[in-house]
């Protein structure tokens, strides 16, 4: 921690934001505010069906319309080879084109783009285009995806991504089975539309062939520029990406997707500036969405309510074209990272469907906290102990640290227990219980809910795009301070918080500091606002850069004034020498010399007053919190009124408490929306049913109470002591509110596991009904008697987290490794038959020796690599080579089976256990990746 923080002149103050004056007076610059001379406007014609083949287009009438400049389809854009990349810049697992190419896979998928003089004309023209489709039955839900025909042609199932154990962990099952208490439940989380108030939008403005300016509403201009340069692969072209003001992102704007890529491609092909601004109907139809998950969590406790073991079975809907095929490793990594639990294992699967693709949403792994905290409360009720006590018995305390938590997460700096203790200083639980008891006698249902959690923030250094942050700061010749940051704000206020740090560290007035960001041509690479990282890493970079500059100013001043650098101080923009008031100079005076009279500087010193630092923080910085919420449920209407909400969090040193509280409050409002209001729906044909804000209900001011805050402020180990706070409210908020509702409904033995908890569902719970998704499935399968038998078996098995036994063959094939194993078995059997009995023998199995081109499906997307084997008897030696480097290994070769271990240090220190089978020129197998689960490996002999 930097010692000057104790001076706290700017860091820690509720300074009004620098962004606010322009935003309050309508002078911000959002993407739709940008006008480029000669700009044309784009409208998309979107698919009206969820799944089918495109048979024919008729665009003649639209082309003939006055004001229409061009009408483009996938065939037109195929003149450019475009790679649609994930957030991690990995190529997509499936073929993705900006416009639908031959098939459509969700309602709202862009099929044709019209380019016209204005948006009105462009939209008119889309209505004149006729497309014939051959409609097919869609796969809409996770259940549909398990049994339905593959969404993407050529795939053998709808499994988009899978991790975890693919065999039953018998010792873990025994622990669960034999425990004194086993709590099990399936949490279902509805689909969420991120709904930033500013929709997506882009302007492409080609500047000849060497520079293309892209104005885009995004979460990091640097990441977009890097993505575009890789996606379009035009070696002589630089993409300059500009995004001054952005109206929220919440994960949606992390990367350019179909529409943005189509507009940029069209701009390149036509050589014209083009603008597309998404309207809200498009945003709630065509934009990627989030969540739609279910997790079956089993937790075993001993007689004292202490954790013994747990297993998570997690599934989420990836839609048709996810921003990256995903079953989010973070969900299982952090599920138990704040708790002492001896044994844990998991299985996770992401599923393709004919719906809008998956994108991130604030705290993309948040279901772990929801499932854990809700079931901990259920466990407390079942075991008969207090919900606070069950956490007290199981949370990792300061005394337990350092320790290695579940999934190998090193824990040495978390404080959820302290947060809970501080929370209980302001929430009088005993008094509430008395009030609750009295209210129940009057037929009023009050409830209190608690939750605790930790969150990894400011991660850097282990995943390629999650880098450090760069701060460049200079004292201008005018004496003012200008900083260029790699950070980017979509409302985060980094122009304010970073300026507070510079003012503090440089000893200058806050008003004298201007922070610039939002232009990829200025400042260095950063992934921007993703993973609660900018305060931690950008803040650290600002401190370090300011320190370098401060030292230089002191050296220059000491040299000019013939003083000792240790006697030089900077305060209020004035440079002073201790004990010599007459030597006081303004920063402007020092700067004018530093830039304009370099001969007067110390010998060999670089002229000017500028400094730059790229700060790389510790791999992870944890934020901890405990929240409490009190609700009253109206027994007549099922409405939930939130009466009180207290946040007690430890986000380290606060740069600006008002901004910290703003981040938490925004996340909590989204949590309230998640638990009570928001639900993005599809009908059975894959038609979205909530495409306006009258149907997709966002929380209004009347839905959100006044929040109370308790801050713990334990400095982190990162420079400045900061911890990230961007996502936490949206992670801990949902279980806090669900637990309060469940507490209120405890007289009814209600299980609140199915979000959102709408008034009608709450009334059903009060009537003793089972509202769980499993129960709904049962109703559905009763109605469809013919399918009932097969379906019931599948559901039962999946529900208890089984690993394939008893599943229909197709479902078994979808489990990780299942398809490969089944296929291999079939092939080898066939080959034996041939070898034994047939004259027309199959080609003899060729040696595994030599080079193989392989693709490994990792949690960060598919990774290409080369494998080389040399075989000598039962021994194999060889090496893997990838863009990350080359590694050698030795292992064993048994016939066509090769096994070897490989120790790697990135993204974490793990041992990769390869188990490969080779048939002719085809390689298939799996790689056990420690806590990352098991990845599939496929390959072919290199030519």
């Amino acid at each position, binding site marked *: 921690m930097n010692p000057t923080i104790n001076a706290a002149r700017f860091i820690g103050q*509720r300074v*009004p*934001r620098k*962004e*606010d*004056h*322009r*935003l*309050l*007076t*309508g*002078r*911000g610059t*959002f993407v*739709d*505010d940008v006008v480029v001379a000669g700009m044309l406007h784009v409208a998309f014609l979107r698919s009206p069906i969820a799944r089918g083949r495109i048979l024919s287009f008729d665009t003649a009438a639209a082309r003939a319309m006055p004001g229409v400049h061009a009408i483009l389809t996938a065939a037109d854009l195929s003149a450019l080879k475009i790679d649609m990349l994930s957030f991690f810049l990995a190529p997509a697992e499936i073929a993705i084109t900006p416009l639908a190419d031959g098939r459509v896979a969700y309602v709202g998928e862009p099929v044709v783009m019209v380019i016209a003089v204005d948006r*009105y004309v462009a939209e008119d023209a889309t209505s004149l285009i006729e497309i014939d489709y051959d409609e097919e039955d869609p796969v809409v839900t996770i259940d549909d995806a398990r049994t339905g025909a593959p969404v993407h042609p050529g795939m053998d199932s709808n499994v988009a991504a899978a991790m975890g154990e693919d065999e039953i962990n018998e010792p873990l099952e025994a622990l669960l089975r034999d425990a004194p208490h086993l709590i099990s439940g399936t949490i279902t989380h509805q689909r969420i539309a991120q*709904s*930033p*108030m*500013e*929709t997506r939008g882009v302007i492409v403005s080609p500047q000849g062939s060497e520079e293309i300016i892209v104005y885009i509403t995004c979460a990091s201009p640097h990441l977009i520029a890097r993505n575009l340069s890789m996606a379009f692969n035009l070696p002589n072209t630089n993409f300059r990406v500009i995004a001054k*003001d*952005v*109206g*929220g992102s*919440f994960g949606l704007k992390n990367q350019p997707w179909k529409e943005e890529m189509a507009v940029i491609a069209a701009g390149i092909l036509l050589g014209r500036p083009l603008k597309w601004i998404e*309207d*809200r*109907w498009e945003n709630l139809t065509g934009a990627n969405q989030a969540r739609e998950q279910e997790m079956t969590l089993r937790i075993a406790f001993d007689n004292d309510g202490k954790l013994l073991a747990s297993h998570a079975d997690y599934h989420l809907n990836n839609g048709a074209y996810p921003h990256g095929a995903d079953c989010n490793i973070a969900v299982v990594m952090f599920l138990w990272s704040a708790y002492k639990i001896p044994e844990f294992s998991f299985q996770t699967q992401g599923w393709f469907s004919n719906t809008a693709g998956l994108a991130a949403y604030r705290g993309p792994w948040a279901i772990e906290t929801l499932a854990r905290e809700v079931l901990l409360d259920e466990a407390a009720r079942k075991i008969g102990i207090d919900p606070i006590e069950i956490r007290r018995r199981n949370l990792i305390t300061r005394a337990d640290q350092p320790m290695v938590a579940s999934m190998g997460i090193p824990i040495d700096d978390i404080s959820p227990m302290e947060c809970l203790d501080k929370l209980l200083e302001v929430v009088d639980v005993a008094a509430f219980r008395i009030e609750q008891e009295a209210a129940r006698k009057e037929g009023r249902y009050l409830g209190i809910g608690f939750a605790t959690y930790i969150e990894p923030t400011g991660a850097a250094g282990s995943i390629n795009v999650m880098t450090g942050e760069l701060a460049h700061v200079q004292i201008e010749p005018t004496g003012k301070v200008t900083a260029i940051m790699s950070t980017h704000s*979509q*409302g*985060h*206020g980094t122009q304010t918080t970073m300026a507070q740090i510079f003012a503090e560290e440089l000893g200058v007035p806050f008003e004298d500091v201007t922070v610039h960001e939002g232009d990829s041509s200025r400042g260095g690479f950063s992934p921007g606002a993703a993973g609660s990282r900018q305060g931690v890493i950008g803040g650290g970079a600002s401190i370090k850069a300011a320190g370098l500059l401060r030292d230089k100013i002191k050296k220059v001043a000491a040299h000019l004034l013939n003083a000792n650098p240790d006697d030089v101080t900077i305060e209020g923009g004035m440079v002073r020498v201790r004990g010599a008031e007459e030597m006081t100079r303004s920063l402007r005076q020092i700067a004018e010399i530093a830039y304009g009279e370099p001969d007067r500087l110390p010998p060999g010193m670089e002229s000017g007053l500028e400094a730059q630092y790229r700060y790389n923080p510790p791999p992870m910085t944890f934020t901890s919190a405990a929240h409490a919420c009190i609700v009253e449920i109206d027994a007549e209407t099922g409405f939930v009124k939130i009466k009180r909400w207290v946040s007690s969090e430890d986000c380290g040193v606060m740069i600006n408490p*008002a*901004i910290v*509280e*703003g981040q*938490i*409050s*925004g*996340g*909590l*409002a*989204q949590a309230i929306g998640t638990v009570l209001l928001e639900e993005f729906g599809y009908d059975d044909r894959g038609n979205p049913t909530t495409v*306006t*804000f*009258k149907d997709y209900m*966002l929380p*209004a*001011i*009347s839905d*959100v109470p*006044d*929040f109370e805050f308790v801050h713990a402020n334990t400095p982190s180990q990162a420079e400045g002591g900061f911890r990230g706070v961007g996502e936490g*409210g949206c992670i801990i908020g949902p279980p806090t509110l669900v637990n309060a509702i469940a507490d209120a409904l405890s007289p009814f033995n209600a299980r609140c596991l199915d979000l959102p908890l709408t008034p009608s569902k709450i009334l059903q719970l009060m009537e003793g009904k089972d509202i769980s998704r499993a129960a709904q499935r049962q109703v559905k399968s009763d109605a469809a008697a013919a399918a009932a038998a097969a379906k019931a078996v599948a559901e039962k098995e999946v529900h208890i987290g089984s690993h394939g036994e008893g599943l229909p063959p197709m479902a078994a094939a979808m489990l990780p490794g299942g398809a490969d194993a089944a296929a291999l078995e079939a092939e080898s059997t066939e080959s034996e038959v041939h070898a034994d009995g047939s004259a027309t023998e199959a080609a003899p199995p060729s040696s595994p020796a030599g080079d193989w081109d392989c693709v490994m499906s990792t949690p960060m997307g598919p990774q290409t690599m080369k494998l080389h084997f040399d075989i000598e008897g039962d021994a194999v030696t060889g090496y893997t080579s990838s863009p990350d480097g080359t590694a050698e290994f030795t292992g064993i070769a048994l016939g066509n089976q090769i096994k070897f271990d490989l120790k790697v240090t990135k993204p974490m220190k793990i041992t990769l256990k390869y188990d490969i089978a080779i048939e002719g020129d085809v390689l298939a197998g799996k790689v056990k990746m420690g806590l990352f689960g098991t990845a599939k490996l496929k390959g072919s002999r290199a030519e």
Partner: protein
Amino acid sequence: MSDHRIELTVNGQTRSATVEGRRTLSDFLRIDAGYTGVHVGCEHGVCGACTVIVDGRAVRSCLMLAVQADGAAVTTVEGLAAPDGTLHPVQQALRDAHGLQCGFCTPGIVMTLAALTSDEKKPGAETLLGAMSGHICRCTGYQGIRKAARALAGEDV
């Protein structure tokens, strides 16, 4: 498409224009008149971001046609602060209370509060907060907006 001649004042300046009958007031203000502080968030009258003041009343400019504003006096968020940059009391209250983050919904919130507090009107906090239920903010959780509304109603916050 029918064209119509309209004349109106925007932030005190007279403007005349020929507009299509279907042109929304929000598009006219943003695209034709250059007042890009008018933000279009949903185009179906729910989010409130596009709110402007027409003849003293807060209206959603996405649900009003430009032709309907013929002869009207329109104020946008650009027209509130003093020429020297001094913020309007509503703007200042929101700034003091950290009532905004991304700032996209903010112009609509400012205009509704400005309309309700104009001409020395002194509405109570309940009136202001009730009106705020017609504005969606996805960033702030409404904490600062509520504080600003209470401050404008003269309550201690």
